[in-house]
């Protein structure tokens, strides 16, 4: 409301951008304190609600790789009733931000119909790695065990693959191999069974290349894994992992 006559009483709102011809009554001038008006102006301008949040301006240090999915099923011709274990193996500079590195699934038996050839574990996994270097990129080691009649577990098959570097959905088929225990008799007959029945303490050593020169294995079986990879901050570190060149 504007003052039209100097001696009229009215309800006044204090506006900082009043037009220049606004006239104040003499006795009302004391109500205004210049310092107070300046302080109010600052508060209005720098209030939190008005500041602009820009996610691109946030600082960063690590890049994150999230690997999730399921180990679906295995196809083995001669083996049945296998328990699946998986283990993620990573370099030293990699840390886990969330999730578990290893897990064990159930003992799966082949079913009827089309399921006759597949033993289904359907074991889900989800893990997030945090690192600053791609050296030591994680691998997924998968191994299958059975329970012997004396109750002990023996490893029947191994396999390992690298986590894909491009983000998205990847359906991977891991080809499995079994260590062979040979003695001269079985070698003479030419009898190599799928599933050598060797006990190994650290299955994750399969992911490394050391010591392989002296081992012999028999190939057999496949395990199908559905791996989904999500990455964060990789472009900021300078790595382009998609085909889309922007």
């Amino acid at each position, binding site marked *: 409301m504007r003052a039209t006559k100097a001696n009229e009483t009215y309800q006044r709102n204090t506006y900082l951008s009043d037009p220049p011809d606004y006239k104040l009554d003499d006795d009302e001038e004391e109500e205004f304190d210049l310092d107070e008006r300046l302080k109010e102006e600052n508060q209005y301008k720098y209030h939190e*609600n008005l500041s602009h*949040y*820009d*996610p*691109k301006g946030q600082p*960063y240090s690590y890049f*994150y790789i*999230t690997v*999730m*999915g*399921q180990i*679906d*099923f295995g196809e083995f011709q001669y083996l049945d*009733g296998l*328990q699946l274990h998986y283990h993620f193996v990573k370099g030293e500079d990699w840390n886990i931000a*969330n*999730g578990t590195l290893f*897990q*064990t*699934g*159930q*003992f*799966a*038996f*082949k*079913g*009827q*119909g*089309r*399921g006759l050839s*597949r*033993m*289904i*574990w*359907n*074991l*889900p996994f*989800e893990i*997030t790695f945090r690192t600053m270097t791609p050296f030591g990129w994680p691998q997924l080691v998968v191994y299958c065990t059975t329970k012997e009649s004396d109750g002990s577990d023996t490893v029947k098959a191994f396999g390992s693959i690298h986590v894909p570097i491009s*983000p*998205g*959905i990847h359906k991977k088929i891991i080809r499995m191999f079994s260590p062979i225990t040979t003695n001269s008799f079985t070698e003479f007959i030419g009898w190599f069974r799928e599933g050598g029945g060797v006990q190994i303490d650290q299955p994750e050593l399969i992911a490394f290349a050391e010591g392989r020169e002296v081992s012999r294995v028999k190939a057999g079986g496949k395990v199908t894994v*559905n791996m*989904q*990879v*999500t*990455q*964060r*901050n*990789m*472009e*900021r570190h300078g790595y382009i*992992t*998609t085909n*889309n060149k922007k």
Partner: protein
Amino acid sequence: MADYKPEIYFIGQIVGGSDFPTDLDGLFVEASLKYGENWKLIEKTSTIQTHTSYPDDEGFFVFAHPFDFYFICESVQGWPKLNIKVWRLDQYGKLDNIAYGIINLPNETGSFDLECPTWRPMSGWREESYNYYLGGPPKLVNSDPIVRDLNKRRFLTSMSSGSIHIHCEVLMKGYRDSFISGDQ
């Protein structure tokens, strides 16, 4: 000011099922969403139950049940998964839970055909012959081992069952601004 939070839409349908060891019985699927605490589902229901379908000549069951999930995502951890239970309705009208499955929803934009293999628990010859003659396979008393508590899986024995086919289209918003991959 929530414009910077990544949002994701999963639009699709539970297409059908195949290769289940049921001869002429009807099947239906109950699917529920499982997601992390930093995900917010903008919708009232997160559980789906399809109609009961009888198989065609090839043994394929058609559900064609659409879903439309809209999430606001504050963390990549806890990516949504569909927790599937397959139920059978036999000729005597008995309802039975015959298989379980879990599948991760896709993490990139596009159109996807997913196949979720399913399994059912197995205990011994007694339960198997009961199932063969009377129809009633062993079931999980507690559904934790499917996805909530995977440490319990190592004590289970299972038998493979059929597959559930799901079609899913994914739309992402705001992922590129946070430097998260998936939205090409």
